[in-house]
């Protein structure tokens, strides 16, 4: 940590880089005595400039590179990259590949939300929740290993034109089994937990107009009361053929976001 005197009692304190559940991150604080006067975020520790890296490569190489954008949902990035290339090149994707993509995207979403719950648990001091979430996430990683060959990074499984290979025969049995297990875990997590409610209710309230102004999307804006979901609003792949509900909460606090995810 560096200390640098700027005023009579004011100091600049470099706080971080730390990994507070959000990725590598540091804060530059201005401190007057023991009071924090201002804080500026420095999020640059993982910025790798993918746009520039992709300039030097062809789409089929970029399919693999797109994994690395984020640890939590490599398959979603695969999918987005593949769709962009397909639209530019006018490629039509086989029906079966579209369904496989949806299955993979949803599995990916579930494991990403599990991580979210794990990190939230650390934040509220509930270490068991962290272990629970990461333990159950591993069942999905096993499925990814079976289907794509990679546990976390699928090495461009969803690539322009479709997917790299078909689902293996045994996936048909294993996917529902894993989902049943995870559903039980989620029921357990959802159960009324006074400590959880006490820590989350009325914390970090984000009003709808603020959410829109700050450009919030997904579960965050749904917790603030806007019924929107890109899978419904602009169905990609074959999402328009599925019937599902969009959960919405009005309050916009941390507990509402917890209930949505």
């Amino acid at each position: 940590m560096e200390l640098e005197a700027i005023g009579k009692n004011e100091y600049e304190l470099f706080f971080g880089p730390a990994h507070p559940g959000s990725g590598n991150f540091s804060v530059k604080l201005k401190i007057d005595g023991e009071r924090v006067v201002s804080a500026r975020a420095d999020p640059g520790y993982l910025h790798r400039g993918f746009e520039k890296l992709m300039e030097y490569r062809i789409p089929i190489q970029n399919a693999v590179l797109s994994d690395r954008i984020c640890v939590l949902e490599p398959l979603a990035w695969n999918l987005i990259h593949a769709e962009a290339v397909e639209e530019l090149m006018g490629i039509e994707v086989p029906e079966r590949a579209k369904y496989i993509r949806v299955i993979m995207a949803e599995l990916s979403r579930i494991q990403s939300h599990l991580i979210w719950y794990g990190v939230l648990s650390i934040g509220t001091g509930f270490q068991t929740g962290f272990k629970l979430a990461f333990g159950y996430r591993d069942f999905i990683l096993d499925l990814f290993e079976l289907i794509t060959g990679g546990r976390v990074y699928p090495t461009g499984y969803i690539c322009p034109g479709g997917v790299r290979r078909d689902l293996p025969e045994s996936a048909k049995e294993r996917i529902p089994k894993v989902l049943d297990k995870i559903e039980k875990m989620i029921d357990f997590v959802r159960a009324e937990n006074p400590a959880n409610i006490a820590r989350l209710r009325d914390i970090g309230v984000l009003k709808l107009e603020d959410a829109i102004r700050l450009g919030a999307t997904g579960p965050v804006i749904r917790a603030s009361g806007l019924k929107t979901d890109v899978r419904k609003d602009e169905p990609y792949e074959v999402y328009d053929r599925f019937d599902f509900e969009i959960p919405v909460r009005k309050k916009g606090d941390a507990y509402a976001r917890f209930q949505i995810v």
Partner: protein
Amino acid sequence: MLEKEIIDKIEKKFEVEGSVQRERRVIVKIAPDKLVELCKFIKDLGFEHLSSLSVTDWPKRGIYEHTYHAWSYKDKILITIKTEINRDKPEIDSVYPVWGESAQIHEREMHELFGVEYKGNPDLSPLFLEEWHEKPPFRKDFDWREYVRKNFYDKENERERVYFERV
């Protein structure tokens, strides 16, 4: 068709080249000095969410192409606004007064990576880079391989030689 209606409304007020790309996709091209006015107009039409702001570098044509994507929660349509500015003296009016903080952070990033000056943006301080003295790193004429070779190549290390001398 909703997409066509939106284009008509914009064309009545502004001089633009507009077209419907496909379902839920509308694209308009406009001169940079009319940009903020257009953005205000479409925000009132319901395009409340600025989902991205990006710059494309076209060195041969000598321009930076700005692309703004805005989403309408009401109509479920994504509008693309394109405008071109000079590449050597990149300056453009900020859309911060229109979309607020969500525009501010995008512009701050583009300022850092492409060196564009956004007039009216309150804070364009560096976001990711530290002690950067080169040209903006996302310009097409910035060669990152050369930069890495110059700054980080340890010539004593045989393993690194395999990577750096191969090119």
